[in-house]
């Protein structure tokens, strides 16, 4: 069976893939899909309930369309989630491979630096980095990316340690493969399972961290919409307009769930040992 055929047989992968695709399309085509300008205020219909005539999901305290803000917020959340995890995956994989493969002082130096980063609470470290760099989407991405590097480094290092003494790694040395080739062609493909799972969890975590930073006022700056920022603002109006908190939360939950399950399914699909003939 080809990869495509096996993909279509795996229901989790298909459903989560479709959900993610939908969210991606929403984010990419935000100007088309959003019915209104996400920052346009309508003073006449503030805190409109879900299902009102002009606003399907209601409005917030300034009369901004919640549907449009959720759609535009998807763009921010996905960009931050994926870009920051890309940074931490690449850096973490390289550092973890170096530490695990070479061992000795290379391992000691890398892992002690990671321990220092680990010692800070995630949010505090992200806050510190954003405070140093200044707020904004790209800086938020960088901050969250750096915060997650130690987790990836540890995961990869552990996986490398379990693989590097196997005979097929030695056999690659025996045929005369270079160190780089051994690390990236022999070891890396065999540790992609924990790496993928870690990445899918980290994307969810990054989306949450972005929300938390926006909630604290350091992520995406108002009036630009982001899910975390929307949830933050909705606190004071929760009883008056529950839709204000429900819809961004729902969007976030769905995205995170889809990423987690998709990562799991992908890990199973990419393992040739699960291939049946």
């Amino acid at each position, binding site marked *: 069976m080809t990869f495509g055929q096996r993909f279509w047989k795996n229901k989790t992968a298909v459903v989560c893939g479709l959900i993610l695709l939908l969210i991606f399309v929403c984010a990419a085509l935000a100007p088309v899909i959003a019915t209104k300008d996400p920052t346009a205020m309508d003073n006449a219909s503030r805190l409109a309930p879900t299902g009102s005539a002009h606003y399907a999901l209601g409005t917030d305290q300034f009369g901004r369309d919640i549907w449009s803000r959720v759609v535009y917020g998807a763009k921010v959340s996905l960009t931050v989630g994926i870009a920051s995890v890309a940074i931490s995956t690449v850096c973490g994989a390289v550092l973890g491979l170096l530490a695990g493969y070479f061992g000795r002082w290379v391992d000691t130096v890398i892992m002690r630096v990671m321990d220092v980063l680990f010692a800070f609470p995630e949010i505090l470290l992200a806050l510190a980095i954003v405070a140093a760099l200044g707020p904004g989407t790209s800086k938020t991405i960088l901050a969250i990316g750096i915060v997650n590097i130690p987790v990836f480094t540890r995961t990869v290092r552990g996986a490398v340690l379990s693989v590097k003494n196997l005979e097929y790694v030695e056999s*690659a040395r025996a045929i005369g493969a270079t160190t780089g080739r051994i690390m990236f062609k022999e070891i890396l493909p*065999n540790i992609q399972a924990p790496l993928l799972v870690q990445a899918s969890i980290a994307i969810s975590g990054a989306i949450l961290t972005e929300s938390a930073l926006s909630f604290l006022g350091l992520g995406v700056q108002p009036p630009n919409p982001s899910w975390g920022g929307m949830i933050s603002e909705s606190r004071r109006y929760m009883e008056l307009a529950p839709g204000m908190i429900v819809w961004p939360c729902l969007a976030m939950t769905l995205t995170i769930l889809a990423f987690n399950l998709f990562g799991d399914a992908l890990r199973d699909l990419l393992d040739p040992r699960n*291939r049946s*003939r």
Partner: protein
Amino acid sequence: MKALLEVKGLTKHFPLQAGFGKKKASLKAVDGIDLTVYEGETLSIVGESGCGKSTTGRCMLRLIEPTSGQLVFDGQDLTGLSAEAMRRKRRDMQLVFQDPFASLNPRKTIRQILLDPLVVHRVGNAGERKDRVNWVIEKVGLSADYLDRYPHEFSGGQRQRIGIARALILQPKLIVADEPVSALDVSIQAQILNLLQDLQQEFKLTYIFISHDLSVVKHISDRVAVMYLGKIVEIADKGTLYREPQHPYTKALLSAVPLPNPKLRKERIVLKGDLPSPSNPPAGCTFHPRCAYATDACRMAAPRLEEKAEGHYVSCHLVDKR
């Protein structure tokens, strides 16, 4: 006969974690080995588990860096080579592994596994490499139809053929086979051994064959070296060694080989005790605590590997020169 690989005074000591205030200890896995491997022959290294035979094999290829000693391969000193020069030299010296389930990368197809050596040493262009892979897979008795499958889809014997194909594809001069059949069923063992012999004749290969199975060794070797606790205790051509073993350890080993004929009973020499720890070997001859003939001389001084008869080297005080 021309020497292909000369091993002089090879040692490998693995450092052990020393406790506070203790002297730093080391595990003497290989403790001074001298060997010459001649072109086109099969030299077997036998010994019980833990005697250092696998370490010796890997040290000969510098897959494990020897602590000391000299390796001269095809007239060139390997011990002084830089990592990069050594990497290039690996083209001529390959290794076949014991466990055919662990030695093939589960994420690669057989085609990728066989292409790797060619890619690494930049042999040929894409078309030539493809032909070479098809050629080698048929040489080891598998069909080219299997090339796009993954290792887990094969049996142990088939995987070992793939391992041999990978070692063969660069057409090396020397192949070190580290217990290549001990993980296989007896019926498959014979097939693999015959394959190795056929390939040796066709490509003029030189084998260093590491094994603990004396019947397998008898089938495939030209010469046999017996190892005990990191040292070679006896080395001779196969016929001599099996007919007239000189070292007490070799005698004991050979007496333990089961005979297919139950009427042909022979005296079995049972060794006392266990293999001593290689981190703290006995003084004098390392075999003396288990030897039935040990004298005071054996407890005092370690014997040297000496030529007692032509081509027959024994490391024992009690064996006289003839």
